[in-house]
């Protein structure tokens, strides 16, 4: 799918609200971006007001509505940049660079197993939207530290997921344990055509191991600290499977698991 070029867009904040503990939803008015962005791509936002923080914040989006000209992002407050982002209220304006990178590739067949850990949920929800639109069946697993920090299962249900499994580290929602354990249970009884995952690196490594052991192709959405987000600085490298590096912003952020060194 051809995607639009990386450009500088002005945006206005329409809504910015806390959905779960430390998990926020930001709704932006950015009409041109909403038309061009594809599931799994990302954008690099500038949070104004503090010149000592010079890098933009790379964030994936969960939903784009070209008709309304809006893009919806779900993000976790993890540092000073995202804390200040959470303070941008309706009417606040800034700029972003996007749509950046290559997104999810639409599988040729279902069913697909989606596995999301923590702040990896937004791009997985974007993938669920894509599968839903394409009429492909999917199941989804969501993992979080605790129930209060869980986001995504309801949206997956609404998008038509056949099954939604939940795991938490402390057992306050779903089954106590890890997403990989839930994945093993599903793989024992269900047939899948492909796996798509985003979450903490150790989790994704586990998901890739399980997928490959079952002979399933797997797409992974990677995260790296980024200098530019459009291929100019070579700062967001990821070790490639057969030596050398891939660029997270240009070759990714979505990769075939077989492209990377795990």
């Amino acid at each position, binding site marked *: 799918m051809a995607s639009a070029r990386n450009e500088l867009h002005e945006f206005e904040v329409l809504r910015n609200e806390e959905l779960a503990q430390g998990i926020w939803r930001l709704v932006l008015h950015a009409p041109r971006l909403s038309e061009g962005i594809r599931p799994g791509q990302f954008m690099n936002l500038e949070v104004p007001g503090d010149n000592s923080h010079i890098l933009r914040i790379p964030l994936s989006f969960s939903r784009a509505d070209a008709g309304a000209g809006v893009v919806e992002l779900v993000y976790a407050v993890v540092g000073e940049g995202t804390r200040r982002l959470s303070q941008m209220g309706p009417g606040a304006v800034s700029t972003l660079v996007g749509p950046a990178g290559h997104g999810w590739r639409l599988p040729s067949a279902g069913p697909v197993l989606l596995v999301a850990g923590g702040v990896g949920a937004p791009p997985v929800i974007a993938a669920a939207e894509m599968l839903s639109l394409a009429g492909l069946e999917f199941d989804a697993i969501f993992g979080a530290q605790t129930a209060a920090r869980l986001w995504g299962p309801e949206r997956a249900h609404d998008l038509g997921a056949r099954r939604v499994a939940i795991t938490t580290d402390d057992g306050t929602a779903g089954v106590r344990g890890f997403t990989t354990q839930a994945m093993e249970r599903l793989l024992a009884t269900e047939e899948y055509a492909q796996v798509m995952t985003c979450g903490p690196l150790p989790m994704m490594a586990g998901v890739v191991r399980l997928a490959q052991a079952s002979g399933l192709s797997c797409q992974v959405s990677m995260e790296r*600290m980024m200098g530019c987000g459009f291929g*100019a600085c070579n*700062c967001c*490298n990821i070790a490639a499977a057969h030596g050398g590096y891939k660029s997270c912003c240009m070759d990714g952020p979505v990769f075939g698991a077989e492209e990377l060194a795990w």
Partner: protein
Amino acid sequence: MVGKSVSMAVSLGGIQMKNPLNTASGTFGYGWQFESFFDVSQLGAITTKGCSAEPWEGNPAPRLAELPSTIMNSVGLQNPGVASFARQSGPYLSKLDERGCAVICQVAGHSIEEYVRAVELYEELAPFASGLELNISCPNVSAGGAAMGATPAAAAEVMRAVRGRTRLPLVVKMAPHDVAEIARALESEGADALSLINTIPGMAIDVRTRRSRVSRPTAGVSGPAIHAIAVRMVWEAHQAVRIPLCGIGGVTSGADAAEFILAGATAVSIGTANLTNPDCAPRILAELQDWVASQGVNDVNDLIGAFEC
């Protein structure tokens, strides 16, 4: 807008630039990455990412950390080699040259032999180049433990070896230390111009894990926090040599660029700001032009080194 009649053209050691604005190598890719943000041909020159005779993988991840008003990088000059670079980016860069923007290609190497080989490859494969920039000061590549240009004698040795291999103007990218002595050594060996400063070696330690925040112990610090240091070093070099200088370090505004010119720079490169605000160059150029006009001169050259103590 004021300053329509102001002459902004400069010559950086024979590289003819329609205005003093250039881009710092490593922050501007090969130029084409920025065409979706602004018309790159507005710039006086661009300096492309350093390339070596053979492809380099660069350093492991992570390569980047953010610190107050700075970033530090340890990319290690990842590049596809001069031949691949010329094949992939040559058509764009030839057109950019035709559009009136000088193309300066950066030369990387680990040894004198590698610099010589890379210069020869550029001579053969990069007819679009108006000049070469010899990077003898990358803090992120090891060559016997120090950058090749760490001493006046070592810098002179590299310069001597490559000078006869090209008729293109040679700019030398300098490290942020011993600027006056190294500048004199390079001038005496035939450098046409000097660009300074390269990133400043720094460290950032994650105190929880006790590990470096990048993949090597040290990395190159750039951005607004190093601007004042860079201006001072340009001023020192300007007092030491007669060849033109290109000031680099933390430029985010026309005023920042103007400081370099007053300190003695003929050209000024935008670096880290290209990454964070990829459309900043035309704004900085307009601000610089307004500043020249505001100083009551008709030619930016009248302001080079016009700093008054």
